[in-house]
C-alpha cells in the first residue's frame, strides 16, 4: 500500500498542479476571452489568437519561458528583444502599401503627423499616473495604432510592458469603428463632413518608385533611430513598385509575413505571466490606450480643419480624413469613409483617407524614433 502511495506522490510531483496559483487561472480567463474575441468577434484574429495562446502557454507551469532554453523565450529573445520581427513586419507592410494617395496629395502627410499628437498627450497622461518616462513613451505610442512599432519601442524602452501594450494596441485597433466616430462627429459640423474632395490625380509608376527612396533618405537623415523600421518599410515598398522582383515582394507580403506573425504573436503572449500582468498598472494602460486613440483622432481632425483655413475653395480637405492619420490601416480610412457617407451618401472619402492613413504609419515610426533618440 505504501509503495502504491509513493508512486502516486511521485507522479503528482512531476505534474504541474503544485505550481499553479490563482493568478494563472485568471490569466487563462483572459486568454479565453481573447480567443473568443478573435474567433467570434473577428477582433484582429491574426494577432490576438496567437497572443492569447501564448498567454495560456506561459500561465501553465512549465519551463517554456525559461531564460536560455525555453522555446517561447528563444522566440521572444531573438524576435522581439533583438528587434528583428517588427522591422520584418514593416518590410511586409511596405510591400503591401500603395502610396498613390499620398503622392497624389502630399498635404495628407501632415495629417499623418498630426495624429501623433495623441501619442504625446497620452505620454503626459501616463506620466501623471506615475509611470516613468520610458514607460510613458511606450504607452503613448499605442495611440499610433501600430502594433509592430509598439512592440519595437517597448522592447527597447520598457520590455515588461510589451505584452500589455501590444494587446491594448491590437484590441483598440479592432475597436476603431467604435472609438473614432463620436470624436469625429463632435469635432466637425455637418457641412464639413459633406465636403467632397476633388478626385485624386493619377500617379505614374516612376513617382511611386521615387517615393520609398526619397522617404528613406529624408526620414533616416532626420531620425536615425527610426532607421530599422522605416528602412525596411521603404525597401518593401520599393520591391513592390519596382515591378521586377515580384517574387520577393510576394514573399515579404505573404510567406514571410505569415511566419513571423505566428512567432510574434505567440511570444508576445508569452511575456504575460500572471505575476507581470495582474497589476493595477494594466488597467491604467488600457484606459490610457483608449485615451491615446481618441486624442490621436481628435488631433488629426483638428489639424485638417486648421489646414482648411488656408486652402482655397475646391481644394479644401474633408476634416474626417484627418482621423485616418491614426494608422490602423485600412480600418481608420474605412471609418472616415463611413462617417462621411452618413452625412452625404454620395461622398466617397475612402481613397482620400488612405493618404493620411499610410502617412500615419510613417508618422508613428518617426515618433517612436524620436522617443528612442531621447530616452534610450
Amino acid at each position, binding site marked *: 500500500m505504501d509503495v502504491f502511495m509513493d508512486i502516486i506522490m511521485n507522479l503528482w510531483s512531476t505534474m504541474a498542479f503544485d505550481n499553479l496559483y490563482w493568478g494563472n487561472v485568471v490569466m487563462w480567463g483572459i486568454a479565453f476571452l481573447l480567443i473568443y474575441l478573435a474567433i467570434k468577434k473577428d477582433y484582429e484574429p491574426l494577432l490576438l489568437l496567437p497572443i492569447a495562446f501564448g498567454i495560456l502557454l506561459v500561465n501553465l507551469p512549465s519551463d517554456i519561458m525559461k531564460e536560455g532554453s525555453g522555446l517561447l523565450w528563444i522566440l521572444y529573445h531573438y524576435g522581439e528583444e533583438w528587434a528583428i520581427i517588427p522591422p520584418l513586419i514593416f518590410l511586409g507592410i511596405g510591400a503591401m502599401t500603395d502610396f498613390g494617395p499620398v503622392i497624389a496629395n502630399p498635404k495628407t502627410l501632415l495629417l499623418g503627423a498630426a495624429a501623433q499628437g495623441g501619442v504625446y498627450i497620452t505620454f503626459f497622461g501616463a506620466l501623471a499616473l506615475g509611470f516613468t518616462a520610458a514607460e510613458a513613451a511606450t504607452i503613448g505610442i499605442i495611440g499610433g495604432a501600430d502594433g509592430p512599432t509598439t512592440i519595437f519601442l517597448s522592447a527597447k524602452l520598457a520590455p515588461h510592458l510589451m505584452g500589455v501594450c501590444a494587446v491594448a494596441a491590437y484590441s483598440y485597433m479592432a475597436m476603431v469603428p467604435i472609438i473614432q466616430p463620436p470624436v469625429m462627429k463632435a469635432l466637425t459640423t455637418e457641412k464639413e463632413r459633406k465636403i467632397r474632395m476633388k478626385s485624386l490625380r493619377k500617379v505614374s509608376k516612376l513617382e511611386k518608385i521615387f517615393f520609398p527612396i526619397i522617404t528613406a533618405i529624408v526620414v533616416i537623415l532626420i531620425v536615425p533611430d527610426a532607421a530599422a523600421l522605416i528602412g525596411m518599410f521603404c525597401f518593401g515598398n520599393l520591391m513592390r513598385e519596382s515591378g521586377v522582383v515580384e517574387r520577393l515582394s510576394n514573399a515579404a507580403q505573404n510567406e514571410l509575413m505569415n511566419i513571423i506573425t505566428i512567432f510574434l504573436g505567440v511570444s508576445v503572449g508569452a511575456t504575460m505571466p500572471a505575476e507581470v500582468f495582474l497589476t493595477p498598472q494594466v488597467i491604467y494602460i488600457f484606459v490610457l490606450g483608449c485615451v491615446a486613440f481618441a486624442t490621436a483622432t481628435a488631433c488629426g481632425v483638428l489639424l485638417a480643419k486648421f489646414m482648411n483655413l488656408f486652402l482655397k475653395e475646391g481644394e479644401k480637405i474633408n476634416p474626417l480624413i484627418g482621423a485616418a492619420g491614426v494608422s490602423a490601416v485600412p480600418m481608420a480610412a474605412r471609418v472616415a469613409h463611413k462617417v462621411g457617407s452618413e452625412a452625404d451618401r454620395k461622398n*466617397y472619402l475612402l481613397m482620400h483617407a488612405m493618404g493620411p492613413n499610410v502617412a500615419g504609419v510613417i508618422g508613428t515610426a518617426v515618433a517612436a524614433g524620436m522617443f528612442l533618440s531621447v530616452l534610450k
Partner: protein
Amino acid sequence: MAVIESPMAGKVIEILVEVGQSVQEDDEVIILEAMKMENPVYAPEGGVVQEIKVEVGQKVEEGEVLIVLE
C-alpha cells in the same frame, strides 16, 4: 442622356440594374468593392439604362464610365 461614372477606384462586385430598366435619382446601381468595403454607387439622375459598360469582377478607375443612361 447621362452617364454614371465611378466615384472611386475599385472592383465591381454587383450590378443591380439591367439594360432597359428605368432608374430614379439616388437609386443604387452598382456595388464597388475597395479596401474590403462595399460601396454603393448611386444614379446621379433618373433615366433608362441604355448600356452597362462594366461587368462583375472588373476593376475600374475613378471617373470611368460605368453605365450610360438615356
